[in-house]
């Protein structure tokens, strides 16, 4: 599996420029994009210094009158630039991956705490779901067959690039658009201040006097393309993405493990995937936030991973000039790294004057410098210990033969925690009940109290369900997590914002902030369950559950991670029930229910090694834009007893499509009708389908989910 991925277009918008070229030029010149925030009133904040994108208004690019968020609009600017550079028309890339963390918070945060404002102006929350930038880009630049929204806190943008690289290298797609986007907002400025994580002056990564980060905003997108496609189009290649790795520390929600063992392993693995060692590496664009703990950890990780070569390899952090752009950072820094490779120029670390004793690296001070860059690495690390590394190489490298991987993916365990209690294996396919789910105290009682402090209902439901699904004693080997939640814990964010509005930024609960980000439940779960593989939160409105299983299947099939537990959790939330649900999901739904369903996916044969047997095989997966629906795209059942299992009733066009496919005549189970509705129900549909096959009631099961004009198809079959 040594296929290369061509980067044929890049775009970015940052505090230093509205294009990749202008940002890069000003980075090299040593300029810093910091100033007092103008987006909102930062009264009461200890500092209002940020890396804001100046002279940019959402209305400049957003098609009126639809309420786009600033995060959505920033994404569109960068994505358009990347497509233009790659000389691709909208619709030509067939896949889109978006990393995002704050999403539509800037527009939502002043309405959320005030119930009357929510009732009066609910449409202003239209961009609140984390999947909003993905859906907006689909509308503006699509159709895309495959889309994915990924949140892994401050490594989200890099997670999106890894996802797209997985699609390209496995041959699923030939051209994909991937990146990250995030606007500044009060929530993050307040939260990072409450944690004491913000330098009151501009940040100083790796410096003796460093005292925290400076927040920024922006977006960056890259066109990822198969070598064959790029050559056929005669596209010019910015750089080759030849290595990548993703994993988690399972250590602490906000503090990195000081030794940097997992980050060091991720750096080594990205190099190994590219077939390189440290001697070929010339530059590292570090995560380099400017916090005391991150920078020392990163220096230790680089020293451990690169050995004596660390004294030769240039290192810089772009956050000293652009600020920490959270969900966008991994993508912005990937673009900068790819451009450094392309142009043989290395940007400096802004604000670094006197390198700290615990950050002894080959720093680039003041201004950029010219240097041959054969290969360069970009590192990203987020809350919860979610890390990603990306390795870019210069065009001059000889091509390596692509080897396609055909790993068969088995579903080896399923669980559901719902109104029926905690069910595992074939019992998941038991009839629904109409009683409410057990109270939070009862769910928390299943967990070790000292290790589940501050867990909310969603997080507790996630950990209980995922723990029951994971094979016991399988401590060896990496285990990844894909967790879906359509809206996150809105009530928890609302409470934090209410304190901010009513009492001011100094009175918010510091420990709440790292627990209320979209990635927080999965981060907490990875720590509780000791999951050291990739950990990502995803969402896709009504098809959120299906989205999680789809991603996990791709991870296992492509070799990104050998065991992934995937699923979805939704707890009752008044704002989701009363406002966000009806606003974002106009279709009729059954009464709201709660639930948490989990599926373990592994390569074929892994369960047998433990003496177990798989429940089902994930035979094929696909996502199709409505404009491209065709019966030929739907593979026929393999056995004589096929069933269709859907979270909600498929729309008429899809029913018609299925009737013209090999699935005509298969009985359809609609989970919503018996269990009630929530956005994660697709995970229960998959678990039910696997259980039904395992208990011999079906040979094939097709799980069909739809959201935002796209169908997700998961075809499960009986193990042979």
């Amino acid at each position, binding site marked *: 599996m040594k296929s290369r991925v061509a980067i044929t277009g890049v775009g970015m918008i940052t505090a230093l420029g509205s294009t990749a070229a202008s940002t890069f030029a000003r980075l090299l010149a040593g300029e810093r994009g910091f100033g007092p925030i103008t987006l909102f009133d930062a009264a009461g904040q200890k500092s209002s210094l940020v890396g804001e994108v100046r002279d940019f208004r959402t209305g400049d690019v957003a098609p009126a009158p639809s309420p786009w968020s600033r995060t959505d609009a920033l994404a569109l600017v960068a994505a358009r630039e990347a497509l233009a550079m790659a000389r691709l028309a909208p619709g030509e890339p067939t896949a889109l991956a978006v990393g995002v963390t704050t999403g539509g918070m800037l527009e939502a945060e002043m309405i959320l705490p005030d119930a009357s404002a929510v009732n009066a102006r609910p449409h202003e929350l239209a961009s609140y779901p984390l999947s909003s930038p993905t859906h907006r880009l689909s509308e503006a630049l699509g159709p895309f067959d495959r889309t994915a929204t990924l949140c892994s806190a401050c490594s989200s943008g890099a997670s999106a690039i890894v996802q797209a690289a997985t699609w390209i290298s496995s041959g699923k797609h030939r051209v994909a658009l991937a990146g990250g986007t995030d606007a500044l907002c009060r929530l993050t400025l307040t939260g990072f201040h*409450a*944690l*004491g994580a913000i330098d009151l002056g501009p940040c100083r990564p790796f410096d003796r006097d460093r005292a925290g980060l400076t927040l920024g905003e922006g977006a960056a997108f890259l066109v990822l393309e198969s070598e064959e496609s790029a050559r056929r189009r005669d596209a010019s290649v910015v750089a080759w993405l030849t290595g990548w790795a993703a994993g988690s520390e399972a250590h*602490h*929600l*906000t*503090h990195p493990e000081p030794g940097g063992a997992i980050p060091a392993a991720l750096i080594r693995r990205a190099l190994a995937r590219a077939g390189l060692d440290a001697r070929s590496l010339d530059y590292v664009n570090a995560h380099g936030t400017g916090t005391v703990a991150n920078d020392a950890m990163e220096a230790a990780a680089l020293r451990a991973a690169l050995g004596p070569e660390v004294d030769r390899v240039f290192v810089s952090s772009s956050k000293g000039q652009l600020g920490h752009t959270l969900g966008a950072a991994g993508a912005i820094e990937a673009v900068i790294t790819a451009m450094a490779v392309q142009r043989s120029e290395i940007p400096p670390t802004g604000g670094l004057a006197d390198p700290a004793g615990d950050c002894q690296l080959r720093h680039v001070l003041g201004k950029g410098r010219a240097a041959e860059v054969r290969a360069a690495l970009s590192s990203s690390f987020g809350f919860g210990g979610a890390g990603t590394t990306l390795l870019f190489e210069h065009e001059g490298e000889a091509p390596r033969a692509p080897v396609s991987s055909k790993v068969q993916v088995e579903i080896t365990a399923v669980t559901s925690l719902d109104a029926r209690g905690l069910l595992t294996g074939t019992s998941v396919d038991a009839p629904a009940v109409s009683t409410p789910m057990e109270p939070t105290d009862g769910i*928390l009682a299943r967990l070790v*109290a*000292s290790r589940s*402090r*501050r867990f909310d209902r969603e997080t507790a439901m996630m950990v209980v369900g995922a723990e029951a699904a994971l094979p016991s004693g399988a401590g060896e080997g990496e285990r990844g997590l894909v967790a879906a939640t359509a809206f996150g814990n809105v009530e928890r964010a609302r409470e934090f914002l209410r304190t901010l509005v009513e009492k001011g930024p*100094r*009175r*918010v*609960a*510091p*420990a*709440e902030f*790292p627990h209320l980000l979209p990635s927080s439940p999965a981060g907490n779960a990875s720590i509780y369950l000791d999951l050291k593989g990739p950990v990502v939160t995803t969402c896709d409105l009504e098809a959120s559950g299906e989205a999680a299983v789809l991603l996990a299947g791709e991870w296992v099939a492509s070799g990104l991670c050998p065991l992934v537990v995937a699923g979805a959790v939704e707890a009752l939330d008044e704002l989701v029930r009363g406002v966000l649900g009806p606003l974002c999901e106009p279709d009729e739904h059954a009464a709201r229910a709660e639930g948490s369903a989990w599926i373990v996916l592994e390569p074929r044969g892994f369960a047998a090694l433990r003496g177990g047997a798989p429940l089902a095989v994930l035979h094929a997966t696909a996502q199709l834009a409505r404009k491209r629906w065709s019966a030929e795209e739907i593979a026929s059942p393999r056995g004589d007893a096929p069933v269709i299992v859907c979270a909600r009733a498929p729309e008429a066009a899809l029913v018609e499509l299925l009737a013209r496919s090999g699935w005509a005549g298969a009985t359809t189970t609609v989970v919503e009708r018996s269990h009630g509705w929530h956005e994660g129900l697709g995970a229960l549909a998959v678990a039910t389908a696997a259980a039904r096959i395992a208990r011999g009631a079906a040979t094939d099961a097709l799980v069909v989910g739809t959201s935002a004009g796209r169908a997700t198809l998961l075809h499960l079959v009986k193990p042979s």
Partner: protein
Amino acid sequence: MDPEALKRELKKLILEELDLRDLAESDIDDEAPLFGEGLGLDSLDALQLAVAIEERFSVQIPEDDRAKPIFASVTALAAFISSARSAS
């Protein structure tokens, strides 16, 4: 407030604010260090506790190194709160 009652109130606040739901007031020793060893609390807990104490007792806890001895134990915290309140 008498010192013992203040200490009891502080312990209750610590248990609630830091979600130490498996512990009781009797598990917190008046003199034992709150952070590092003992209860297994970390700097994030310290930040949370500082905001909660400022809110509940209307006191101002310094943000620099002077905060460290204040959080040395429940007794030290109670002494700080008593003197800060009588000073104001």
